[in-house]
């Protein structure tokens, strides 16, 4: 089956992807809600910012992350001094890179599901005494739950495959930042590494497929629970 090395690579990839989702979910839900339900000046600018990682070369994102989160970068210093967390060339940095790169995908799924909620339901909740936060917590978020889960799983799958920003930001250090894609790349560069790279490619296919199938099943289940019927979107 899997060699110890391969298992380590898979576990590291999953750890990085999971943490990237954990980091980005609060921001993702907030951005999706604001974009779906609020009107304010500069909304289109925020929209563009959210989508930026989708169109920007990943190398550029990685480079900027290095500037921001590096030892001498403003955010890097802050994290180091206040929380004792170093992210440059560490797996936590890889998680940040994945979080940024998968953010547009996550927000898109969440936003779509929030936009599909009938605003009339939210108005009805208001007439029953709910304020802005009450409506958000009791109507909008529960009804958007299938979309929120979809967004999380898409971001997870996207994080598993992140390459450009990660390698630029945290480099390719075996056992620390070498996730599946980086390991495949490294093996491909090594003479005689093709067979091992092939194995990792199949592994990565299985992982991604499993994530997508799981997402499908979860969405169907929550839809049933949330809306009382089987709505596949």
């Amino acid at each position: 089956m899997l060699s110890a090395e391969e298992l380590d690579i898979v576990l590291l990839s999953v750890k990085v992807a999971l943490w990237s989702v954990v980091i980005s979910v609060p921001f993702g839900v907030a951005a999706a809600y604001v974009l779906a339900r609020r009107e304010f000046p500069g909304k289109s600018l925020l929209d563009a910012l959210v989508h930026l990682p989708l169109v920007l070369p990943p190398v550029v994102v990685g480079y900027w992350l290095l500037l921001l989160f590096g030892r001498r970068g403003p955010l890097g210093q802050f994290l180091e001094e206040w929380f004792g967390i170093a992210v440059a060339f560490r797996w936590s940095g890889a998680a940040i890179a994945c979080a940024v790169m998968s953010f547009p995908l996550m927000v898109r799924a969440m936003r779509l599901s929030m936009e599909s909620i009938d605003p009339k339901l939210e108005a009805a909740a208001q007439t029953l005494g709910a304020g802005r936060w009450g409506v958000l917590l009791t109507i909008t978020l529960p009804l958007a739950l299938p979309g929120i889960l979809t967004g999380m799983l898409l971001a997870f799958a996207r994080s598993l495959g992140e390459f450009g920003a990660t390698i630029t930001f945290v480099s390719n250090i075996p056992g620390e930042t070498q996730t599946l894609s980086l390991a495949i790349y490294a093996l491909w560069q090594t003479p005689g590494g093709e067979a091992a790279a092939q194995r990792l490619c199949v592994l990565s296919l299985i992982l991604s497929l499993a994530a997508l199938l799981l997402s499908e099943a979860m969405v169907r289940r929550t839809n049933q629970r949330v809306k009382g019927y089987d709505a596949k979107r």
Partner: protein
Amino acid sequence: MLSVDIHHMQGAFNLNAAFECGAGVTALFGPSGAGKSSVVNAIAGLIRPRAGRVVFDGETLFDSARGLHVRAGRRRFGYVFQEARLFPHLTVRQNLLYSHWFDRTLYSASDFSHVVELLGIGELLLRRPAQLSGGEKQRAAIGRALLAKPRLLLLDEPLASLDAARKQEILRYLRRLRDETRIPMIYVSHAVDEVLQLADQVVLLAAGDVVASGSVEDVMGRPDLRPGAGLFEGGAVIETQVTGVHRGDGLIMLGFDGGTLTAGNTSACVGDRMRVRIRAREVSIALEPPQQISIQNILRGRIVSVDAPGGGSVIVVIAVGSATLRARVTQRAARQLALAPGVEVYALIKALTLDQRVDGMPLNIQ
């Protein structure tokens, strides 16, 4: 009790609504697109009008001059929407108690069981809205609004998306609600029969303006309201009481101080109060009491006025006892009979529109 004076613009649509309403049921009546829903949304606090004031029981809820706008959740107005708007992720029970999440003091077990009993929704409590029929949804939505202990109940065409049988079912519950809870209601509708069955007062809205307001009898009797004007047909509304029931013929006798009317009905009981609407075009006039005629309803009265709204016909207003009847006849007929104020005439009525207005619930509706 509620005083509304608002101005609002929505695209090219201009709304200017000023009216007062008191206890009981006030119908906000008018054709689609008249601005009824905008008025109700402004009262509820869901939209903020351009200008004006909304005052309830001395409490100002909206005043553009002072920049005051009490948000919907703080107004304590119940709102029943056309499409029920139950929350799909909650059970019926959770829907009913939704308002209590925001105000724990609202809960009272006896209120809950009373509302559940009043609306007959005891068996639905554990279901999800997706498993309910249209009528059941609407009953649950009414219950949800009631359990928020509203000071005023707003109903925006709550029957519009239901079929005829369900309409009657919900109307029965609404009548019961009106008579038992005494919560003032604003009832939006474009259906005359609903207004007749429920309302005490009518505010008539057309193209964003209040055309008329007052008691049902007064507003429905206005001769300038006729089909084609996009509104309802002018006529008279008379309050009567059942004085006799002839089950074999399927007829009942309705007494009022101007005489007795005969109408078809199989479920009324002696003593029931009934509201009768008589369209102006269904009333003919004779100077002598006619003999050997199929028409059952012949009332003696005295002409109060003869109005000519145009179109080749005249509206003859006839005082019958303390009630007022209206008859639409051709100008030529009016000339031939020399109809004029003060003349004693016989009004012949072909058909009556009956509406049962009983205290409590009519138990034997068939």
